[in-house]
């Protein structure tokens, strides 16, 4: 068991990779065996993430050096520069790991029946597992170039999954836009990595943070990192490709793609807090991120109210909810300079933003899956054609209501808990931000009631007379996320204390991150 814990960071990445290439030979034997392989490997990865999380919460940062004589050896032979690829898993990374493991498991179970009628299922699950491995790599790695490689793996497999149903013309166009944007963003990110490597001759985030002097080249590198990663998360001026790609993907793939954009947001936080830390001009970068959050929130939700395609409507909501996270953590970054403001509301702002990542990662995939369930049964995504589906899709109705109340921030459910933290702390920083955030919440509730009214309520339309409830695996997939939402809504204190606050401290405490790499050297 102890060996399993020490090797768990790389096992979490390698097992989905291994399962990805096993799906082809096993898939030839039979669909059932392949499905068992996929779900078993993802369940084992979930188990590994949980034991790794427990180990990190007990005794701090977990280092894993690939290929060294022992996993903790970061500076072999007393060298001053960390050699080899080092996976550094601290409380913030494992926080994202828990989210990604649960959502990918739920999405895989959902896709068992959602994709049952598609041809080429072996390749679908190979790509799905590759995306799981790519995103875990992005979350756990402590090496900038390795972050680029895993970013590209997740993007390529994501684009191929978006365009999986090549019989739809818009699916291929969505996939094409996703891969073009990801390729350009990846190359611009690589340019920034090259700039940093030119100055400090190393790629390891811990070492770079230690040697960083924030020269002009570093400012250019920071902008390239910032913009190339935020375009992948759907920041407002750069978000226009986001709805096109996320509408046309199968519902479970959109659910997972939302979490890959969370991983890109995590990478922005890792670069701003752990790589640059206090050396960067905190107030300006903080204010840039806050304004990005403000714009993203407002434009995202105003565009969402206008949509009539249910998946496009929810993609715009995913964009606007990202605005909350940007604003929360941006406020924390803006006050990173003066410790007294950080203590009063800065830390609460960051934990509010990070808690919102967790909540968003639970209700947004659930909402995408309910939209997928509607598409699965009615064959259309257009809200104008739907009506009265609540009569015969009872479970989807209940799950949709849970998701809607949660995304709109209605008190008992978990959306409210994180928005509450964000409102309170951001108000102290600048009241206008909290006012806009509340306005956006109101419009979110208004738009979701519109979708609820047009899809579920109303008389039973003749053409949907014989619509049955969605098959069992889809309900299980959605049920896992709904259970997560209800648990977080009833015990928010427990979640914030145990999972969110350590992640916030890990993000703020750059010295611990650097010490994990530089201090870990053994002769």
């Amino acid at each position, binding site marked *: 068991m102890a060996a399993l814990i020490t090797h768990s960071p790389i096992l979490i990445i390698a097992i989905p990779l291994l399962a990805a290439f096993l799906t082809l030979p096993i898939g030839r034997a039979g669909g059932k065996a392949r499905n068992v392989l996929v779900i078993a490997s993802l369940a084992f990865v979930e188990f590994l993430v949980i034991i790794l999380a427990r180990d990190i919460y007990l005794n701090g940062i977990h280092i894993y050096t690939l290929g060294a004589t022992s996993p903790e050896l970061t500076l072999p032979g007393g060298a001053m520069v960390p050699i080899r690829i080092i996976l550094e898993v601290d409380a913030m990374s494992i926080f994202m790991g828990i989210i990604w493991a649960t959502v990918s498991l739920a999405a895989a179970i959902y896709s068992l029946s959602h994709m049952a009628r598609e041809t080429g299922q072996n390749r679908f699950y190979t790509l799905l597992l590759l995306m799981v491995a790519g995103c875990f790599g992005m979350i756990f790695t402590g090496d900038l170039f390795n972050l680029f490689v895993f970013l590209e793996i997740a993007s390529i497999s994501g684009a191929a999954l978006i365009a999986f149903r090549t019989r739809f013309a818009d699916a291929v166009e969505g996939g094409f836009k996703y891969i073009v944007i990801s390729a350009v963003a990846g190359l611009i990110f690589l340019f920034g990595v090259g700039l940093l490597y030119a100055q400090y001759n190393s790629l390891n985030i811990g070492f770079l943070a230690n040697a960083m002097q924030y020269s002009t080249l570093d400012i250019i590198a920071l902008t390239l990192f910032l913009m190339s990663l935020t375009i992948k998360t759907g920041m407002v001026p*750069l978000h226009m490709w986001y709805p096109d790609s996320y509408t046309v993907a199968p519902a479970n793939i959109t659910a997972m793609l939302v979490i890959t954009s969370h991983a890109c947001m995590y990478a922005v936080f890792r670069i701003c807090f752990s790589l640059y830390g206090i050396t960067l001009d905190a107030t300006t970068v903080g204010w840039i991120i806050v304004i990005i959050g403000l714009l993203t929130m407002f434009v995202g939700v105003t565009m969402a109210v206008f949509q009539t395609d249910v998946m496009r409507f929810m993609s715009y909501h995913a964009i606007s909810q990202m605005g909350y996270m940007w604003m929360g953590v941006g406020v924390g970054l803006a006050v990173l300079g003066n410790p007294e403001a950080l203590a009063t509301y800065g830390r609460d702002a960051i934990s509010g933003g990070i808690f919102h990542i967790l909540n968003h990662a639970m209700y947004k995939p659930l909402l995408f899956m309910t939209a997928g369930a509607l598409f699965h049964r009615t064959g259309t995504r257009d*809200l104008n054609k739907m009506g009265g589906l609540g009569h015969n899709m009872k479970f989807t109705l209940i799950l949709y209501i849970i998701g809607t109340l949660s995304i709109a921030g209605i008190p008992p459910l978990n959306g409210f808990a994180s928005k509450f933290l964000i409102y309170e702390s951001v108000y102290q920083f600048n009241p206008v931000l909290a006012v806009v955030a509340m306005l956006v919440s109101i419009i979110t509730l208004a738009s979701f009631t519109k979708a609820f009214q047009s899809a579920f309520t109303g008389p039973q339309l003749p053409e949907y007379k014989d619509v049955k409830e969605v098959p069992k695996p889809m309900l299980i997939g959605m049920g896992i996320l709904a259970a997560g939402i209800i648990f977080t809504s009833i015990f928010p*204190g427990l979640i914030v204390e145990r999972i969110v606050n350590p992640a916030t401290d890990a993000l703020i405490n750059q010295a611990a991150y650097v010490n994990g790499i530089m201090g870990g050297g053994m002769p």
Partner: protein
Amino acid sequence: MIESPSGFWGPVVWIIAAIVALLIAYFIQRRGEKAYKKGVQSETFLMGNPKLSEGETHIRAHNIYWGFFEGLKKYYVPTITAHTGIINDHLIWLIAGIAIVMIILFVAGGI
């Protein structure tokens, strides 16, 4: 129970308060008119218009918030036309974004 700069959020307390409020509302409703029978009310009065079929009575999604969009037309028309689906425009936004952020950081850094 979450602590925040100027308050706290306890969902369990809130749920209990909600149940108490619902009970009070239920008692007030119980004291209403006993004689009312559920099925007595007849069809809605449509001023003599012909009865619409199932499909027509259901309000479709596109005209629910008609007034909202009409009111904000000056905001909506430019934003929606800005959302062209052309990839080249998306890349123009990206390059413009990089340029703007770089200028802001240099100007702020310089002061």
